């Protein structure tokens, strides 16, 4: 469950960068599991096992990287709340580096996913990886430039 949950956390943090959103993340889990005729734990465990079994090794690696990015992003955000945002550009470039890298990695994950092959008939996994490198290079150039 970990990576998906983290994906939700970033998704929730990303939109308005407010503190109101993280509180909404917990709301979701009970609401989604209560609908099943199974108990919530069973559903969660089912999803988790399903994920472990079906996901290829490479995608799991990507997921680990994404969850790491989420942790870094959350830490930065918490620190910004605690310590204030004085060099605002520094905070922004650090935070948006994690968000941007997360989004780019998610794109890579989507593009290399076998199930989405029909959607991306012109993008081979190698091409997707090259795009990923290109995007990341631009992202880091801008972040380094913006952090001063």
């Amino acid at each position, binding site marked *: 469950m970990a990576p*998906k949950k983290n*994906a*939700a956390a*970033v*998704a*929730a943090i*990303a*939109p*308005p*960068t*407010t503190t*109101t*959103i993280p509180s*909404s993340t917990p*709301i*979701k889990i009970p*609401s*989604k599991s209560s*609908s*099943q005729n199974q108990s919530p734990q069973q*559903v969660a465990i089912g*999803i988790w096992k*399903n*994920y472990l079994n079906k996901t290829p090794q490479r995608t799991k690696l990507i997921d680990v990287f994404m969850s790491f990015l989420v942790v870094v992003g959350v830490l930065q955000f918490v620190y910004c709340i605690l310590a204030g945002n004085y060099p*605002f*550009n520094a905070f*922004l*470039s650090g935070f*948006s580096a994690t*968000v*941007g890298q997360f*989004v*780019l990695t*998610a*794109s*890579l994950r*989507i*593009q290399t*996913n076998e*199930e*989405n092959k029909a*959607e*991306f008939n*012109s*993008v081979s996994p190698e*091409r*997707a990886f*090259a*795009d*990923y490198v*290109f*995007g990341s290079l*631009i*992202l880091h150039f*801008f*972040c380094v*430039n*913006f952090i001063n």
Partner: protein
Amino acid sequence: MVAKTQEPFFQGSTGKNSRGVLRIIILCLIAGAAIASRLFSVIRFESIIHEFDPWFNFRATKYLVSNGFYDFWDWFDDRTWHPLGRVTGGTLYPGLMVTSGVIYHALRALTIPVDIRNICVLLAPGFSGLTAFATYLFTNEMSTSPSAGLLAAIFMGIAPGYISRSVAGSYDNEAIAIFLLVFTFYLWIKAIKLGSAFWGALCALFYGYMVSAWGGYVFITNLIPLHVFVLVCMGRFSPRVYVSYCTWYALGTLASMQIPFVGFLPIRSSEHMSALGVFGLLQLVGFVEFVRSGVPSKQFATLLRGFVLAVFAISFGGLVLLTVSGVIAPWTGRFYSLWDTGYAKIHIPIIASVSEHQPTAWPAYFFDLNLLIWLFPAGVYLCFLKLADEQVFVVVYAILASYFSGVMVRLMLTLTPIVCVAAALALSNILDTYLTFKSPEEPTATATVTDGASNGATKKAAKQEELRSMRQPLVGIYASFSKISVVGAMTTYLLIFVLHCTWVTSNAYSSPSVVLASRMPDGSQHIIDDYREAYQWLRQNTKEDAKIMSWWDYGYQIGGMADRPTLVDNNTWNNTHIATVGKAMSSREEVSYPIMRQHEVDYVLVVFGGLLGYSGDDINKFLWMVRIAEGIWPDEVKERDFFTERGEYRVDDGATQTMKDSLMYKMSYYNYNSLFPPGQAQDRVRGVKMPEVGPILNTVEEAFTSENWIIRIYKVKDLDNVGRDHASAASFDRGNKKKKTLKKRGPKVLRVE
């Protein structure tokens, strides 16, 4: 169109090649036409910068070229906004200057040394050729028809709606911005079609370039999220949308924040919140889709959808809360006045005073987009018929841009590309239908019908055949006469369109406002060149740092042509400072003289068109000065005082005393009587007879008046040597001596020191 008619002759792979060659030739010709139709003003007059704003861009470009990029980036300009100065590097969009600087250096590196002025003058025509090419690419994404792209390219190349802002010499931000706008949209469509992060990143890069070039980038920032939002609402969310949008947003926002003038705006201002909101929404939707694929239950899926809606509502509420509490800046006045069209007129007269910010009249649409405007709805309708992702974009763009162009004349510019594209789609559809000369299914279908009818084995069989044929009626146009007539009509319209565009460009949009052209009785051209005469006088006959006070319209031109410091200019960032100038112009001399002394004004420049009938002069703009000054000092300047009892704005005998006493009135009409026989002075703009006795000026003296009295420059007098006030000193000089020494002593005041 040429390619279309030729097509049947070229078959197979050689046909493909020759069509490719034809395409290249046509595109080159289109670029040539786009460039050539913009050169009227250069050929007729000379290669100079027009209008007002481009003079600043030109000046900044010269600074960039002579001082290098880093100096330009942190350039503090102390020759504008005199006591304050302007941090130019942080208050302009550097894209235009940097582009022409790069071209300048590239040409020098190729050992073609071209003057920077010529690069600036010819930048807009050059980029219009590129715009035509970008429109070609963009339209090709929309339609499979071979002619749509080429038609859109030629439309975009010569449509007057775009030419109006991009003739040679109009060195304004729009010159390159429209190219970037269309090209960004092309990359966006490409990204969303392929779902490729590479194209998304390229789109972000060009978006960053666009941000550096024009303030209208806000349009893109709102249009692309709107497109995605509409797609999500239509239930067309796909991983491609996620990949392209998130790549674009993450990189594009960072890219836009690199421009100092934009800075933290993408985080902090309301204009950019839609992009951020849609970014968050996509994360949610993407995650939910991901989870849903792993979970079988239907009920659960609807719950997830409810969850998306709930989070969206909560974050929207949070956004509203943040805006209300002031963490996120509300809409700026300029942007807000697009929604509340009465807002600017009431609260910010300086926005309303610009003629470009008025609502558009109907004839302007026909004038600017002749035949395209009635093909435009048809093209949008065609997009509705085939509603793929990219057609949704056209629809959204068309609706949004139509609204904006209706609110503000100047936004006709953003409407023009989509009008060209939609019109090309409609027209190419017509041509594709009517230009296919062979009728494919006709023989088989008709054969069965005729067989069934003529043979007539039995009544029933015939009936059945008839019914079957009626079930699948053969629809199509087969008569070559109807085909030829329709195609002929369309060709005629297209030719008329070309004629119209050329006529409009030549007559309406190709006049430099620096030079006024008029016709002599014998048809020869007479050039009125008072502006440059006066600016040249200022440049040569005044001190290097003599401060010039004028109304803000002329600020950039004075800075660019006369090269003297000014108090206010067209970059209206400090309203109070402009109001100060407005107050000095609209007050009595005794009031305005201290103001001018405090601001170290040496010369005052006014534009007066009374002699020549030049209607854009300062007396006609005077009421705006009064209004803007009244906004700051409501007690001292009152608009009501400038109208007569019956509410008329008059400059002749019936003018109010406040009007006659105002500095602007006096400076405009000073000595004007002396031009005419006594009692016959005539103001040709207002069409009235001037009073017998002209105004008297005490605190300023006439320094220069141009040949046709369009520009009048006054020098501000120094303080009186013996400490009298100027009025009494001047009256003493005129010889109004007191005839007899008055016995009666005036009320004395105790000397303090």
